[in-house]
């Protein structure tokens, strides 16, 4: 992508009908470490590659929003914190007024509208973060992808962030089995999906973190022990098939995932969406 004369302002269209600033914001998402989301009938799971460290315990990638909802992010953490704070405030406000949990799709719709405002003003910039929202409410399990372009997609499974194409490929291949998966199997699928985004070798500074929400299960990010347990579980399933599956990714993957300039502001890398919003 080259610099051109139409990319200084969010409010400037290119002759091809593109908003370059919004597309550049989407690039920011691809700079962040990968994160994967997938759901079954009763559960929604978020897996994230977090920067592991002995000294810090904060997990800026996975943020709980309410008892029934949480998000995982890729991109500018500062923007993500703001979005998370907005979502938490909306949830609390809803609880105060209506004594109940906010329907996930309504909150996500509101968030999309809020983010759209930043793509249409000369004095604002788009949020530089993509988020995966996992939730469970009266309508069942939910997984939504929200991007800086303010596109909100309802997904069965999704991966965003750097080197996430291999994760998406894995998810697409196994998508049909997710609906009736058990909780453990679902988490293992997510871990195996995100393994592809680690790159050639095991990177010791990146740790896989899991969060889950579902029927009778409030949103929680799993602790170290449980994380480790599921990592081992996923490895054990892996080993018999290791020879066939773990071929190193092709050179193209190292540079990004798929076309880096999606047309129409639509994310061309999206898979498995159940409806457009």
């Amino acid at each position: 992508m080259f610099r051109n004369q139409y990319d200084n302002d969010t409010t400037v269209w290119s002759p091809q009908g593109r908003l370059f600033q919004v597309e550049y914001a989407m690039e920011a998402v691809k700079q962040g470490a990968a994160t994967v989301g997938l759901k079954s009938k009763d559960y929604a799971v978020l897996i994230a590659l977090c920067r592991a460290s002995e000294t810090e315990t904060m997990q800026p990638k996975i943020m709980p929003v309410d008892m029934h909802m949480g998000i995982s992010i890729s991109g500018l953490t500062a923007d993500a914190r703001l979005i998370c704070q907005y979502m938490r405030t909306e949830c609390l406000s809803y609880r105060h007024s209506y004594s109940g949990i906010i329907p996930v799709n309504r909150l996500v719709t509101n968030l999309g509208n809020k983010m759209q405002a930043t793509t249409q003003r000369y004095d604002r910039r788009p949020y530089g973060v993509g988020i995966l929202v996992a939730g469970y409410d009266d309508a069942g399990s939910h997984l939504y992808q929200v991007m800086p372009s303010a596109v909100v997609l309802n997904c069965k499974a999704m991966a965003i962030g750097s080197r996430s194409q291999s994760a998406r490929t894995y998810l697409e291949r196994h998508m049909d089995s997710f609906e009736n998966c058990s909780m453990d199997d679902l988490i293992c699928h997510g871990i195996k999906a995100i393994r592809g985004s680690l790159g050639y070798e095991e990177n010791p500074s990146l740790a896989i973190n899991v969060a889950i929400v579902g029927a009778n299960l409030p949103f929680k990010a799993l602790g170290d022990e449980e994380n480790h347990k599921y990592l081992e579980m996923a490895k054990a399933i892996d080993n018999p098939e290791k020879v066939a599956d773990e071929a190193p990714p092709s050179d193209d993957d190292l540079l990004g995932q798929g076309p880096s300039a999606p047309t129409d502001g639509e994310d061309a890398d999206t898979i498995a969406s159940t409806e457009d919003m």
Partner: protein
Amino acid sequence: MLNNYNSMAQPLWQNGPTPGAFYNFTGGQQQTQKLPKELTAAGPFGTKRSTSSITTGSSVLGIRYDGGVMIAADTLVSYGSLARYQNILRVFPINNNIILGGGGDFADIQSIKRTIDQKMIEDQCYADGITMKPKALSSWLTRVLYNRRSRMNPLYIDVVVGGIEQDGTPYLANVDLRGRAYEDYVVATGFARHLALPLVRERKPKDREFTAEEASELIRKCMEVLYYRDTRNMAQYTVGVCNASGTTIDGPCKVSENWTFAATIKGY
């Protein structure tokens, strides 16, 4: 225009002294409180805080049974002691799983009902299949009424909210003008609180909910007692029913009045 009220008139000056009010000569910090929305709308009669009710609806009775809820209210709105409007529906279907019975100042009931109807239209506009549940409406109503009371300008109402929750369980609650709310299998407003509540509580089976027939019979009986004893009631009433198949408003029904016993009263 009413009372020579000119709605297009501009004030003579902005941010200056108001006759009769304190004026902050030294300027600096903003002393004046911003008036709440309901007191800023200009009108021909001005707007004031008030704690009086003008046209009122009397008792509302709600009973929860195994399949849903029933809410009954007579069709009278009084003007003080005058039985002014005699054919008014005071039980409303809100959506497919909520009914609302309104007692107290009827203008306030109509005002809050309009706001609630707007909320239902919002839900329809979302078009995502999500409708408001009775507990959510009751909670929202509590917050609104409590806020109004705390600003010393209450909506002078006493309402019964009932309906079916998401999982099919019936819900019944009473919210009053001070923002006090409670849930029970029988709730009532006005005189029904004194006359009908004990009657229904006495007949409640200990180990189960009422059946639809029992609830219906109790409502009929209570409306009869209320007609005889409450001087602000009349013999015609409507009953709202909310169950798994939706909401209906039955009526108007008539209390079977029988005044022949009057002749047996000594000194009559």
